């Protein structure tokens, strides 16, 4: 850490800068935009899960009065197979990216986009969808990961994918397995041989959607001079720019992406879906702005959920609770195109523990479901649910308190994970101890059909590029510009770090989120990185201002530069000379001009996050309905910059995890048609499904950040799955190994098998 406690502003709870706009309805989200001459567009989607497109005929749609343009795959660029380096991030398979935005020869999930249409109003655009005629040759769908891995499974991508069942097998023959990862450490067989108890179990989790309340949207103008402007609600304007440029085949510099307010993302608002359609429609119309947004059904059927998973976990331990060996097998559904988060799931699976011998393998498998996107701690909820369930079972079998057993094996600084990474300064043990010390854990749970469960969670967190630009205004305030779209209070957490560094009041910082032409490259708001890396950029920009203010004061006072130093919101010189920040700010314009601080950072010293949750449930023995009675979430948050928003991240993550555990799932029929594509039937927790979610913030500062920040957003979604399942076991004696544990699934487990 560079800065030192006690902090004046970091750790307080001010009102967010964008707050008034958001409680008065003034804040402009993506679909709130209205431009002169704007047209409305909709996407035509496949009714089939798996089919070859024989023919598309839009002539009837185009003949409808009010319809102005139709875009099909023929309007997109050509792209061959294979990976290409796009100069930013890992190489991408352009053909798959394009195919997902607008189907090529084939549709690979129900809801797959095949065309789009622009009209004078929304109703006309909708009418036109029915007039676009598409002829399909329907193929049998492959709907789940285990079926898709069978040798007999229909191949979704012909000969293109050749990930094998073993390392030796890779690249040998076509399959639906796109990729395989493997990590190994120690001698697993020897570890199991030395174990007193070995338990092996299989688990499944459903496909879940991020469930942001704001549907995807995009508005585009392809101007006659070739300049393209895209207004959209996205987690990352720069990644939208890159992806759109690739898909449209134009230089990145011809696209400007303007960030609108964003109504939730959780990882799901990183890919592009509508932007290229809106741009191409605008181009066809000769430079008319086109606005699009999705229906809820489209969001559920055609935007990134997270993988449905199958896993098999085997863990061996000594009778004293020492973990000896683990074997973790993970198979994740990628959806219609490769790219599940199985790699991250594999990295995190054993994260909270030090286990000397481990083997982890993961498979990325295509199925006829929507292409998955990142979802909060991608991959980790499923893999850690499986491991935390087996750990719980071992603790019970050897008669040890589940937290004592976890503490005995806790990963600490220097612990090596099977993927090779070594833990830095972490708060894992502190979180576990805080659970044991909590009023909730110490309380007695009474009553029939009630049970308590605990589980841990680990997430590595991300760094990535961020930029900040801060200008000192002559009235002594600072205008702060970043490229990080604000999903949950990062304007506040950035402004607080700037104010702390400059020693000025929080209210004197005016943060703004600006378009891609107006700030340096900034990674997505995701990976729990924005308060960490963006905050670092803000800190550096403030330090840049401090240095320039020292130089200016030295010049005004005509003293040596070394005799001047910035401290606590003022510049101090020799003989008691001092300028407050405001005084010097007022002098800047006529002493040489305005000062602004800049920073472009790419920090790698992220601090990993650990969380542990305690859950009390009551299970109705007649219906299988689970009620959460009490819930406590403990987490190492590094430094809580704005504790209210830190708590909010924890509470929100916990409730999404509870949704995964109890009520949410993609439900497909045998034809690959989703049968619950509405908020009524895709059951996210409501106010009535949750109690208050108590939080305990453990603060183990990350030494790799000026204010000790570690990401907090993702890890809280990880523990609930196992915490709830372990609580259900404690209440009923039934181990739930298939989530969600909704009444239908749970009752099946609870009722005695029919004779």
């Amino acid at each position: 850490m560079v800065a030192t406690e006690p902090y004046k502003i970091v750790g307080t709870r001010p009102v967010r800068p964008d707050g008034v706009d958001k409680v008065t309805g003034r804040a402009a989200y993506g679909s709130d935009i209205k431009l002169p001459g704007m047209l409305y567009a909709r996407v035509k989607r496949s009714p089939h899960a798996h089919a070859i497109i024989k023919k598309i005929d839009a002539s009837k749609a185009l003949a409808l009065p009010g319809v102005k343009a139709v875009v099909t795959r023929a309007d997109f660029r050509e792209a061959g197979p294979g990976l290409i380096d796009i100069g930013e991030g890992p190489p991408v398979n352009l053909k798959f990216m394009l195919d997902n935005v607008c189907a090529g020869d084939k549709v690979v999930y129900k809801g797959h986009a095949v065309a789009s249409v622009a009209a004078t109003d929304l109703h006309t655009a909708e009418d036109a969808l029915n007039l676009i005629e598409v002829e399909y040759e329907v193929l049998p769908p492959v709907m789940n990961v285990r079926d898709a891995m069978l040798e007999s499974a229909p191949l979704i991508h012909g000969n293109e994918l050749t990930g094998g069942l073993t390392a030796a097998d890779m690249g040998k023959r076509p399959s639906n397995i796109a990729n395989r990862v493997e990590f190994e450490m120690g001698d697993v067989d020897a570890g199991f041989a030395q174990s007193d108890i070995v338990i092996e179990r299989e688990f499944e989790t459903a496909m879940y959607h991020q469930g942001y309340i704001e549907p995807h949207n995009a508005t585009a103008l392809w101007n006659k001079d070739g300049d393209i402007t895209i207004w959209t609600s996205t987690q990352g304007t720069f990644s939208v720019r890159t992806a759109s440029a690739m898909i449209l085949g134009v230089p990145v510099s011809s696209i400007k992406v303007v960030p609108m307010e964003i109504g939730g993302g959780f990882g799901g608002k990183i890919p592009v879906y509508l932007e290229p359609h809106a741009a191409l429609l605008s181009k066809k119309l000769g430079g008319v702005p086109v606005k699009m947004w999705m229906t809820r059904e489209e969001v559920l059927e055609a935007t990134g959920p997270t993988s449905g998973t199958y896993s098999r976990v085997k863990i061996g331990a000594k009778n004293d609770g020492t973990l000896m060996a683990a074997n973790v097998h993970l198979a994740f559904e990628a959806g219609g195109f490769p790219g599940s988060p199985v790699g991250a799931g594999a990295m995190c699976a054993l994260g909270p523990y030090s286990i000397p011998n481990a083997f982890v393998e993961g498979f990325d498998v295509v199925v006829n479901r929507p292409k998955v996107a990142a979802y909060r701690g991608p991959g980790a909820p499923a893999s850690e649910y499986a491991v935390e369930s087996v750990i719980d079972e071992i603790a019970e079998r050897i008669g040890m308190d589940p937290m004592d057993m976890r503490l005995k094996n806790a990963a600490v600084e220097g612990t090596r994970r099977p993927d090779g990474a070594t833990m830095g300064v972490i708060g894992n043990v502190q979180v576990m101890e805080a659970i044991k010390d909590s009023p909730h854990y110490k309380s007695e749970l009474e009553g029939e059909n009630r049970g308590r469960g605990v589980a841990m969670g680990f997430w590595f967190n991300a760094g990535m590029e961020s930029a900040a630009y801060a200008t000192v205004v002559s009235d002594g305030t600072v205008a702060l510009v970043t490229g990080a779209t604000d999903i949950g209070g990062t304007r506040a957490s950035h402004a607080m770090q700037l104010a702390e560094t400059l020693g000025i009041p929080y209210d004197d910082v005016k943060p703004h989120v600006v378009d891609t032409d107006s700030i340096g490259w900034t990674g997505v708001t995701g990976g729990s990185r924005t308060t960490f890396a963006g905050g670092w950029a803000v800190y550096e920009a403030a330090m840049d201002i401090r240095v320039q203010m020292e130089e200016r004061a030295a010049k005004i006072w005509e003293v040596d530069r070394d005799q001047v130093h910035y401290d606590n919101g003022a510049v101090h010189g020799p003989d008691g000379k001092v300028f407050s920040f405001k005084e010097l700010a007022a002098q800047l314009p006529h002493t040489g001009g305005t000062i602004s601080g800049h920073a472009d950072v790419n920090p790698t010293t992220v601090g990993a996050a650990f969380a542990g949750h305690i859950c009390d449930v009551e299970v109705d023995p007649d219906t299988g309905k689970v009620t959460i009675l009490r819930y406590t979430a403990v987490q190492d948050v590094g430094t809580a910059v704005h504790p209210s928003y830190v708590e909010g991240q924890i509470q929100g993550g916990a409730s999404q995890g509870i949704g995964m555990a109890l009520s949410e799932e993609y439900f497909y029929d045998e034809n690959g048609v989703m049968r619950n594509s509405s908020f009524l039937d895709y059951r996210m927790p409501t106010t009535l499904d949750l109690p208050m979610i108590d939080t305990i913030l453990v603060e183990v500062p990350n030494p790799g950040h000026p204010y000790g920040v570690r990401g907090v957003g993702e890890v809280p979604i990880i523990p609930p799955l196992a915490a709830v399942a372990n609580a259900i076991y404690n209440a009923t004696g039934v181990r739930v190994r298939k989530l969600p544990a909704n009444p239908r699934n749970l009752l099946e487990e609870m009722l005695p098998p029919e004779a």
Partner: protein
Amino acid sequence: MSNRIIINTVINGEPTEFLADERDSLLEALRERIGLTGVKEGCNNGNCGACAVIMDGRLVNSCLVLAAETEGANITTVEGLAKGGELTPLQQTFLEDAALQCGICTPGFLVAATALLEQNPHPSEHEIRYWLAGNLCRCTGYDKIIRAVQHAAERSA
């Protein structure tokens, strides 16, 4: 092409006459024709509450009301809650209690909670949860929203 109709209403206290397609929902008319985009669309079929407005004293999801049905109606949207430059106690406690993260659900929650406190100025936690069960929030886990409503109720005690 579609048929247009003229509708006379009072919106946020202002007599408002607008032209709508006969297929327009109230939500579409408010957002796309009148420009009151504080009213949000989350599902367009009555399941999320983001589009909540108060119509003739009743809390309704504007996506389930046809614009044509609002002839003569008195409608309050989130834009009409704050009067005379002052935020309402609910708007204030939502800010102080950090009851919003992304904020897309906030207009619906504020309108629904306003309607609740009008009918029941001192609701219990369960009554608040029951009343707001038609409003989905994916970011907060509801904890801080419920507390903000409790605090607003205390404040107007």
